[in-house]
Protein backbone atom coordinates (compact mmCIF):
# COMPACT_ATOMS: atom_id res chain seq x y z
CA UNK A 1 0.00 0.00 0.00
CA UNK A 2 0.99 3.63 -0.37
CA UNK A 3 3.60 4.85 2.11
CA UNK A 4 2.22 8.01 3.72
CA UNK A 5 4.96 8.73 6.24
CA UNK A 6 5.75 12.43 6.40
CA UNK A 7 7.74 14.74 8.60
CA UNK A 8 5.77 16.78 11.07
CA UNK A 9 6.97 20.01 9.41
CA UNK A 10 5.81 18.95 5.95
CA UNK A 11 2.53 17.59 7.22
CA UNK A 12 1.59 20.81 8.98
CA UNK A 13 2.99 23.02 6.21
CA UNK A 14 0.07 21.91 4.04
CA UNK A 15 -2.21 24.01 6.24
CA UNK A 16 -2.84 27.51 4.93
CA UNK A 17 -4.17 30.66 6.58
CA UNK A 18 -7.93 30.51 6.93
CA UNK A 19 -8.08 26.71 6.97
CA UNK A 20 -10.65 24.74 8.95
CA UNK A 21 -9.10 22.07 11.13
CA UNK A 22 -10.67 19.22 13.06
CA UNK A 23 -8.70 18.22 16.14
CA UNK A 24 -9.28 14.89 17.87
CA UNK A 25 -9.37 14.52 21.60
CA UNK A 26 -11.68 14.85 24.57
CA UNK A 27 -9.70 16.74 27.16
CA UNK A 28 -6.16 15.38 27.08
CA UNK A 29 -6.68 11.85 25.70
CA UNK A 30 -6.58 11.89 21.93
CA UNK A 31 -5.37 15.46 21.57
CA UNK A 32 -2.51 15.60 19.02
CA UNK A 33 -0.40 17.98 21.09
CA UNK A 34 2.71 17.74 18.93
CA UNK A 35 0.87 18.49 15.69
CA UNK A 36 -0.73 21.46 17.43
CA UNK A 37 2.62 22.67 18.72
CA UNK A 38 4.05 22.50 15.20
CA UNK A 39 1.05 24.52 14.02
CA UNK A 40 1.83 27.11 16.68
CA UNK A 41 5.43 27.16 15.51
CA UNK A 42 4.44 27.64 11.85
CA UNK A 43 1.90 30.28 12.81
CA UNK A 44 -0.93 29.87 10.28
CA UNK A 45 -3.67 32.45 10.98
CA UNK A 46 -7.47 32.87 10.92
CA UNK A 47 -8.04 29.20 11.61
CA UNK A 48 -11.36 27.54 12.36
CA UNK A 49 -10.81 24.82 14.96
CA UNK A 50 -13.38 22.06 15.37
CA UNK A 51 -12.89 20.02 18.52
CA UNK A 52 -14.97 18.70 21.37
CA UNK A 53 -13.35 21.22 23.72
CA UNK A 54 -10.48 23.71 23.60
CA UNK A 55 -8.29 21.74 26.03
CA UNK A 56 -7.22 23.38 29.27
CA UNK A 57 -5.71 26.83 29.51
CA UNK A 58 -2.10 26.75 28.40
CA UNK A 59 -2.14 23.54 26.41
CA UNK A 60 -3.21 22.06 23.07
CA UNK A 61 -5.74 24.17 21.23
CA UNK A 62 -5.39 26.90 23.82
CA UNK A 63 -1.85 27.58 22.61
CA UNK A 64 -3.32 28.43 19.20
CA UNK A 65 -5.91 30.68 20.84
CA UNK A 66 -3.26 32.40 22.93
CA UNK A 67 -1.11 32.88 19.85
CA UNK A 68 -3.92 34.68 18.02
CA UNK A 69 -4.19 31.99 15.33
CA UNK A 70 -7.84 31.09 15.91
CA UNK A 71 -10.74 33.05 14.43
CA UNK A 72 -13.45 30.55 15.24
CA UNK A 73 -14.04 27.55 17.44
CA UNK A 74 -16.71 24.88 16.98
CA UNK A 75 -16.97 22.92 20.24
CA UNK A 76 -19.41 21.22 22.56
CA UNK A 77 -18.01 23.00 25.59
CA UNK A 78 -15.17 25.17 26.89
CA UNK A 79 -15.59 24.06 30.47
CA UNK A 80 -11.93 23.19 30.94
CA UNK A 81 -10.64 26.42 29.49
CA UNK A 82 -11.46 29.71 31.24
CA UNK A 83 -8.93 31.45 29.00
CA UNK A 84 -10.90 30.57 25.87
CA UNK A 85 -14.14 31.67 27.52
CA UNK A 86 -12.46 34.99 28.32
CA UNK A 87 -11.35 35.41 24.69
CA UNK A 88 -14.86 34.53 23.52
CA UNK A 89 -16.41 37.06 25.88
CA UNK A 90 -13.90 39.67 24.73
CA UNK A 91 -14.94 39.02 21.13
CA UNK A 92 -11.45 37.90 20.06
CA UNK A 93 -12.77 34.58 18.84
CA UNK A 94 -16.21 33.45 17.79
CA UNK A 95 -17.49 30.21 19.23
CA UNK A 96 -20.18 27.93 17.84
CA UNK A 97 -21.50 25.51 20.46
CA UNK A 98 -23.01 22.17 19.46
CA UNK A 99 -24.55 19.44 21.57
CA UNK A 100 -21.73 16.92 21.91
CA UNK A 101 -23.40 14.00 20.20
CA UNK A 102 -24.72 16.22 17.45
CA UNK A 103 -21.24 17.62 16.89
CA UNK A 104 -20.18 13.99 16.48
CA UNK A 105 -23.03 13.27 14.05
CA UNK A 106 -22.40 16.42 11.98
CA UNK A 107 -18.76 15.44 11.58
CA UNK A 108 -19.71 11.87 10.82
CA UNK A 109 -22.28 13.02 8.25
CA UNK A 110 -19.55 14.88 6.37
CA UNK A 111 -17.40 11.78 6.43
CA UNK A 112 -20.31 9.69 5.20
CA UNK A 113 -21.13 12.11 2.39
CA UNK A 114 -24.53 13.03 3.83
CA UNK A 115 -25.47 16.71 3.50
CA UNK A 116 -27.34 16.73 6.81
CA UNK A 117 -29.12 14.67 9.43
CA UNK A 118 -32.44 15.26 11.17
CA UNK A 119 -32.63 15.33 14.95
CA UNK A 120 -34.79 16.59 17.77
CA UNK A 121 -31.84 17.16 20.09
CA UNK A 122 -31.75 20.75 21.29
CA UNK A 123 -34.92 21.75 19.49
CA UNK A 124 -36.48 24.87 21.05
CA UNK A 125 -33.26 25.60 22.96
CA UNK A 126 -30.64 28.29 22.45
CA UNK A 127 -28.52 25.82 20.48
CA UNK A 128 -31.22 25.58 17.82
CA UNK A 129 -31.09 29.29 17.05
CA UNK A 130 -30.79 29.87 13.33
CA UNK A 131 -31.02 26.20 12.42
CA UNK A 132 -33.68 25.11 9.92
CA UNK A 133 -36.63 23.19 11.36
CA UNK A 134 -38.70 20.86 9.20
CA UNK A 135 -41.60 18.61 9.92
CA UNK A 136 -40.87 14.97 9.15
CA UNK A 137 -43.60 12.39 9.65
CA UNK A 138 -45.39 14.54 12.20
CA UNK A 139 -42.27 15.35 14.21
CA UNK A 140 -40.51 18.72 14.24
CA UNK A 141 -36.82 18.18 13.51
CA UNK A 142 -33.74 20.30 13.30
CA UNK A 143 -31.75 19.90 10.11
CA UNK A 144 -28.17 19.57 11.33
CA UNK A 145 -25.72 20.28 8.56
CA UNK A 146 -22.71 18.07 7.87
CA UNK A 147 -19.52 19.60 9.22
CA UNK A 148 -16.45 19.03 7.10
CA UNK A 149 -12.99 20.54 7.31
CA UNK A 150 -9.88 21.09 5.27
CA UNK A 151 -7.72 19.15 7.72
CA UNK A 152 -7.99 16.70 10.57
CA UNK A 153 -5.24 16.34 13.15
CA UNK A 154 -5.41 12.96 14.83
CA UNK A 155 -3.47 11.20 17.58
CA UNK A 156 -3.08 7.43 17.21
CA UNK A 157 -1.60 4.88 19.52
CA UNK A 158 -0.33 2.77 16.61
CA UNK A 159 -0.23 3.38 12.89
CA UNK A 160 1.27 1.68 9.87
CA UNK A 161 2.75 3.55 6.90
CA UNK A 162 -0.50 3.21 4.92
CA UNK A 163 -2.38 5.00 7.71
CA UNK A 164 -4.28 2.15 9.37
CA UNK A 165 -4.37 3.07 13.01
CA UNK A 166 -5.74 2.36 16.47
CA UNK A 167 -6.63 4.55 19.43
CA UNK A 168 -6.06 3.83 23.10
CA UNK A 169 -8.98 3.73 25.54
CA UNK A 170 -10.89 7.02 25.80
CA UNK A 171 -8.44 8.68 23.41
CA UNK A 172 -10.68 7.41 20.60
CA UNK A 173 -13.62 9.83 21.06
CA UNK A 174 -14.04 12.11 17.99
CA UNK A 175 -10.95 10.93 16.09
CA UNK A 176 -12.46 8.15 13.95
CA UNK A 177 -15.19 10.55 12.83
CA UNK A 178 -12.83 13.40 12.05
CA UNK A 179 -10.48 11.06 10.20
CA UNK A 180 -13.33 10.44 7.77
CA UNK A 181 -14.57 14.01 7.48
CA UNK A 182 -11.60 16.12 6.47
CA UNK A 183 -10.08 16.72 3.07
CA UNK A 184 -6.58 15.98 4.36
CA UNK A 185 -6.06 13.75 7.37
CA UNK A 186 -2.80 13.96 9.32
CA UNK A 187 -2.16 11.27 11.93
CA UNK A 188 0.55 11.46 14.57
CA UNK A 189 1.39 8.03 15.97
CA UNK A 190 3.09 6.98 19.16
CA UNK A 191 4.14 3.74 17.53
CA UNK A 192 4.83 3.16 13.88
CA UNK A 193 4.43 -0.49 12.94
CA UNK A 194 4.85 -2.43 9.70
CA UNK A 195 1.88 -3.13 7.46
CA UNK A 196 0.08 -6.20 8.68
CA UNK A 197 1.07 -5.73 12.32
CA UNK A 198 -2.32 -4.25 13.09
CA UNK A 199 -4.71 -7.13 12.48
CA UNK A 200 -7.38 -6.10 9.93
CA UNK A 201 -10.08 -6.80 12.55
CA UNK A 202 -8.34 -4.51 15.05
CA UNK A 203 -7.99 -1.43 12.84
CA UNK A 204 -9.99 1.48 14.24
CA UNK A 205 -9.54 3.81 11.26
CA UNK A 206 -8.68 2.26 7.88
CA UNK A 207 -5.73 3.52 5.89
CA UNK A 208 -7.69 4.83 2.88
CA UNK A 209 -9.01 7.69 5.02
CA UNK A 210 -5.52 8.89 5.94
CA UNK A 211 -3.20 11.20 3.99
CA UNK A 212 -0.14 11.59 6.18
CA UNK A 213 1.42 9.59 9.01
CA UNK A 214 3.83 11.34 11.37
CA UNK A 215 5.77 9.13 13.75
CA UNK A 216 6.34 10.75 17.15
CA UNK A 217 9.79 9.92 18.42
CA UNK A 218 8.77 10.86 21.94
CA UNK A 219 5.81 12.33 23.73
CA UNK A 220 5.91 15.61 25.59
CA UNK A 221 4.59 16.31 29.07
CA UNK A 222 1.32 17.57 27.64
CA UNK A 223 0.20 14.02 26.85
CA UNK A 224 0.26 13.09 30.50
CA UNK A 225 -0.50 16.32 32.25
CA UNK A 226 -3.82 16.98 33.87
CA UNK A 227 -4.11 20.05 36.02
CA UNK A 228 -6.11 19.67 39.22
CA UNK A 229 -6.14 23.01 40.95
CA UNK A 230 -2.48 23.81 41.54
CA UNK A 231 -1.31 20.24 41.24
CA UNK A 232 0.45 19.37 37.99
CA UNK A 233 1.38 15.75 37.51
CA UNK A 234 3.30 14.27 34.66
CA UNK A 235 1.84 11.03 33.38
CA UNK A 236 3.46 11.04 29.95
CA UNK A 237 5.58 8.31 28.48
Amino acid sequence: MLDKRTSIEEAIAQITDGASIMVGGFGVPGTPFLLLEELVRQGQKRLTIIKNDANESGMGVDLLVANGQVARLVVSHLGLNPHAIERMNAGDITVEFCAQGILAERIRAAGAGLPAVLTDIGIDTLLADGKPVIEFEGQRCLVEKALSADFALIHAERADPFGNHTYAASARNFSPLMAMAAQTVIVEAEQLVAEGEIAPDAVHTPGPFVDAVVHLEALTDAYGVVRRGNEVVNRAG
Partner: protein
Amino acid sequence: MQARERIVRRAAREVRAGMTVNLGIGLPTGIAAYLEAGMNVCLHSENGVAGVGPAVATERADRNLIDAGGAYVSTLPGASFFDSAVSFALVRGGRLDLALLGAMQVSASGDLANWIIPGKFTPGVGGGMELAQKSRRVVALMTHCDKGGRPKILQECTLPLTAPRCVDRVITDMAVIDIRGGTMLLREIAEGVSVQEVVDATDAPLTIDADAISTF
Protein backbone atom coordinates in the same frame (compact mmCIF):
# COMPACT_ATOMS: atom_id res chain seq x y z
CA MET B 1 -24.73 15.18 57.08
CA GLN B 2 -23.82 17.75 54.42
CA ALA B 3 -26.47 18.58 51.83
CA ARG B 4 -24.33 17.12 49.01
CA GLU B 5 -23.71 13.88 50.80
CA ARG B 6 -27.39 13.52 51.62
CA ILE B 7 -28.33 14.01 47.96
CA VAL B 8 -25.69 11.65 46.65
CA ARG B 9 -26.46 8.90 49.14
CA ARG B 10 -30.14 9.01 48.27
CA ALA B 11 -29.42 9.20 44.55
CA ALA B 12 -27.27 6.07 44.73
CA ARG B 13 -30.44 4.13 45.54
CA GLU B 14 -31.86 5.01 42.11
CA VAL B 15 -29.32 2.72 40.51
CA ARG B 16 -30.51 -0.88 40.12
CA ALA B 17 -28.66 -4.01 39.10
CA GLY B 18 -28.52 -4.56 35.35
CA MET B 19 -28.87 -0.91 34.43
CA THR B 20 -26.70 1.11 32.07
CA VAL B 21 -26.29 4.44 33.83
CA ASN B 22 -24.68 7.82 33.19
CA LEU B 23 -23.55 9.86 36.14
CA GLY B 24 -23.42 13.49 35.04
CA ILE B 25 -20.49 15.76 35.69
CA GLY B 26 -20.33 17.38 39.13
CA LEU B 27 -22.58 16.27 41.95
CA PRO B 28 -23.71 12.97 40.33
CA THR B 29 -20.14 11.74 39.84
CA GLY B 30 -19.97 11.28 43.60
CA ILE B 31 -22.67 8.62 43.44
CA ALA B 32 -20.23 5.96 42.24
CA ALA B 33 -18.67 5.81 45.70
CA TYR B 34 -22.03 4.93 47.27
CA LEU B 35 -23.05 2.11 44.95
CA GLU B 36 -23.28 -1.33 46.49
CA ALA B 37 -19.99 -3.14 45.89
CA GLY B 38 -20.15 -5.71 43.12
CA MET B 39 -23.49 -4.46 41.84
CA ASN B 40 -24.07 -5.42 38.21
CA VAL B 41 -24.19 -1.89 36.86
CA CYS B 42 -22.67 -0.60 33.63
CA LEU B 43 -21.56 2.99 34.03
CA HIS B 44 -21.43 4.91 30.76
CA SER B 45 -19.22 7.90 30.16
CA GLU B 46 -20.04 9.97 27.12
CA ASN B 47 -16.39 10.22 26.03
CA GLY B 48 -16.68 6.61 24.93
CA VAL B 49 -16.54 4.17 27.82
CA ALA B 50 -19.03 1.59 29.07
CA GLY B 51 -18.09 -0.23 32.24
CA VAL B 52 -16.35 2.62 34.07
CA GLY B 53 -14.78 1.46 37.32
CA PRO B 54 -13.51 3.34 40.36
CA ALA B 55 -11.50 6.52 40.03
CA VAL B 56 -7.73 6.06 40.04
CA ALA B 57 -5.08 8.16 41.76
CA THR B 58 -3.13 10.25 39.29
CA GLU B 59 0.14 8.44 39.90
CA ARG B 60 -1.40 5.09 38.95
CA ALA B 61 -3.61 6.37 36.16
CA ASP B 62 -3.70 5.38 32.51
CA ARG B 63 -3.16 8.73 30.79
CA ASN B 64 -5.60 7.69 28.03
CA LEU B 65 -8.47 6.76 30.30
CA ILE B 66 -10.63 9.49 31.79
CA ASP B 67 -14.33 9.93 32.31
CA ALA B 68 -16.32 12.78 30.79
CA GLY B 69 -15.54 14.91 33.83
CA GLY B 70 -11.82 14.54 33.23
CA ALA B 71 -11.13 12.25 36.19
CA TYR B 72 -8.79 9.31 35.77
CA VAL B 73 -10.85 6.15 36.03
CA SER B 74 -10.45 2.39 35.74
CA THR B 75 -12.61 -0.10 33.86
CA LEU B 76 -14.41 -3.19 35.07
CA PRO B 77 -14.28 -6.57 33.32
CA GLY B 78 -16.77 -6.32 30.47
CA ALA B 79 -15.88 -2.72 29.66
CA SER B 80 -15.68 -1.37 26.12
CA PHE B 81 -14.34 1.73 24.39
CA PHE B 82 -16.05 3.37 21.42
CA ASP B 83 -16.14 6.63 19.53
CA SER B 84 -18.30 9.66 20.34
CA ALA B 85 -20.87 8.86 17.67
CA VAL B 86 -21.46 5.39 19.10
CA SER B 87 -21.45 6.82 22.60
CA PHE B 88 -24.32 9.16 21.84
CA ALA B 89 -26.07 6.60 19.65
CA LEU B 90 -26.27 4.61 22.87
CA VAL B 91 -27.93 7.61 24.54
CA ARG B 92 -30.23 8.72 21.73
CA GLY B 93 -31.03 5.16 20.72
CA GLY B 94 -32.56 4.47 24.12
CA ARG B 95 -29.91 2.17 25.60
CA LEU B 96 -29.22 4.38 28.61
CA ASP B 97 -31.57 3.26 31.38
CA LEU B 98 -30.86 6.11 33.74
CA ALA B 99 -29.10 9.46 33.80
CA LEU B 100 -28.45 11.18 37.09
CA LEU B 101 -27.83 14.83 36.25
CA GLY B 102 -26.91 17.89 38.20
CA ALA B 103 -29.49 20.69 37.92
CA MET B 104 -29.69 24.43 38.35
CA GLN B 105 -33.48 24.60 38.08
CA VAL B 106 -36.32 22.15 37.51
CA SER B 107 -39.85 23.18 36.59
CA ALA B 108 -43.18 21.69 37.61
CA SER B 109 -43.51 20.03 34.23
CA GLY B 110 -40.02 18.54 34.39
CA ASP B 111 -38.11 21.12 32.38
CA LEU B 112 -34.42 21.01 33.20
CA ALA B 113 -31.98 23.93 33.22
CA ASN B 114 -28.41 22.99 33.94
CA TRP B 115 -26.04 24.43 31.39
CA ILE B 116 -26.01 28.17 31.10
CA ILE B 117 -26.42 31.35 33.11
CA PRO B 118 -26.44 33.93 30.33
CA GLY B 119 -23.62 36.42 30.76
CA LYS B 120 -22.14 34.57 33.74
CA PHE B 121 -21.64 30.87 33.05
CA THR B 122 -21.39 29.98 29.39
CA PRO B 123 -19.13 26.95 29.00
CA GLY B 124 -21.32 25.12 26.47
CA VAL B 125 -23.61 22.17 27.03
CA GLY B 126 -21.30 19.21 26.34
CA GLY B 127 -23.43 16.08 26.22
CA GLY B 128 -26.08 17.41 28.60
CA MET B 129 -28.89 17.86 26.13
CA GLU B 130 -28.78 14.31 24.81
CA LEU B 131 -28.55 12.87 28.29
CA ALA B 132 -31.54 14.93 29.46
CA GLN B 133 -33.65 14.38 26.38
CA LYS B 134 -33.02 10.72 25.59
CA SER B 135 -32.16 8.74 28.71
CA ARG B 136 -35.00 6.40 29.57
CA ARG B 137 -35.17 7.90 33.03
CA VAL B 138 -33.76 11.23 34.19
CA VAL B 139 -33.17 12.01 37.84
CA ALA B 140 -32.10 15.58 38.60
CA LEU B 141 -29.94 16.32 41.62
CA MET B 142 -29.53 19.72 43.26
CA THR B 143 -29.74 21.53 46.54
CA HIS B 144 -33.35 22.46 47.13
CA CYS B 145 -32.55 26.19 47.31
CA ASP B 146 -29.71 28.34 46.07
CA LYS B 147 -27.16 29.97 48.35
CA GLY B 148 -29.53 32.88 48.89
CA GLY B 149 -32.26 30.48 50.03
CA ARG B 150 -34.32 30.91 46.87
CA PRO B 151 -36.18 27.86 45.51
CA LYS B 152 -34.72 26.08 42.49
CA ILE B 153 -37.90 24.06 41.87
CA LEU B 154 -40.06 26.53 40.02
CA GLN B 155 -43.35 26.77 38.18
CA GLU B 156 -41.27 27.68 35.13
CA CYS B 157 -37.49 27.75 34.80
CA THR B 158 -36.03 31.25 34.43
CA LEU B 159 -32.75 29.96 32.96
CA PRO B 160 -32.52 28.70 29.37
CA LEU B 161 -33.54 25.06 29.20
CA THR B 162 -31.36 22.06 28.62
CA ALA B 163 -34.47 20.09 27.66
CA PRO B 164 -38.18 20.50 28.30
CA ARG B 165 -40.30 17.91 30.16
CA CYS B 166 -37.46 15.47 30.68
CA VAL B 167 -37.06 15.08 34.45
CA ASP B 168 -38.75 12.08 36.07
CA ARG B 169 -37.56 12.69 39.59
CA VAL B 170 -35.79 15.43 41.56
CA ILE B 171 -33.62 14.57 44.52
CA THR B 172 -32.58 17.44 46.78
CA ASP B 173 -31.21 17.75 50.28
CA MET B 174 -34.82 18.22 51.46
CA ALA B 175 -37.00 15.96 49.35
CA VAL B 176 -37.58 13.42 46.62
CA ILE B 177 -40.19 14.64 44.15
CA ASP B 178 -41.60 12.72 41.18
CA ILE B 179 -42.88 14.47 38.09
CA ARG B 180 -45.68 12.77 36.16
CA GLY B 181 -47.75 14.40 33.45
CA GLY B 182 -46.93 17.90 34.60
CA THR B 183 -47.61 17.24 38.27
CA MET B 184 -45.07 17.24 41.10
CA LEU B 185 -45.60 14.55 43.68
CA LEU B 186 -43.76 14.73 47.00
CA ARG B 187 -42.49 11.21 47.69
CA GLU B 188 -39.89 11.49 50.43
CA ILE B 189 -38.58 14.05 52.84
CA ALA B 190 -35.14 14.22 54.36
CA GLU B 191 -34.72 13.28 58.00
CA GLY B 192 -35.38 16.32 60.16
CA VAL B 193 -37.27 18.20 57.44
CA SER B 194 -41.03 18.78 57.61
CA VAL B 195 -43.46 18.63 54.74
CA GLN B 196 -44.27 22.28 55.36
CA GLU B 197 -40.61 23.23 55.08
CA VAL B 198 -40.44 21.51 51.69
CA VAL B 199 -43.60 23.25 50.54
CA ASP B 200 -42.23 26.63 51.65
CA ALA B 201 -38.95 26.01 49.85
CA THR B 202 -40.64 25.00 46.59
CA ASP B 203 -41.97 27.50 44.08
CA ALA B 204 -44.32 25.06 42.36
CA PRO B 205 -47.44 23.24 43.55
CA LEU B 206 -46.71 19.87 45.18
CA THR B 207 -49.21 17.05 45.31
CA ILE B 208 -48.94 15.61 48.80
CA ASP B 209 -50.26 12.34 50.13
CA ALA B 210 -49.02 12.68 53.71
CA ASP B 211 -49.49 8.98 54.49
CA ALA B 212 -47.36 7.90 51.55
CA ILE B 213 -44.39 10.11 52.29
CA SER B 214 -41.35 8.36 53.66
CA THR B 215 -38.14 9.72 55.10
CA PHE B 216 -34.62 9.38 53.71
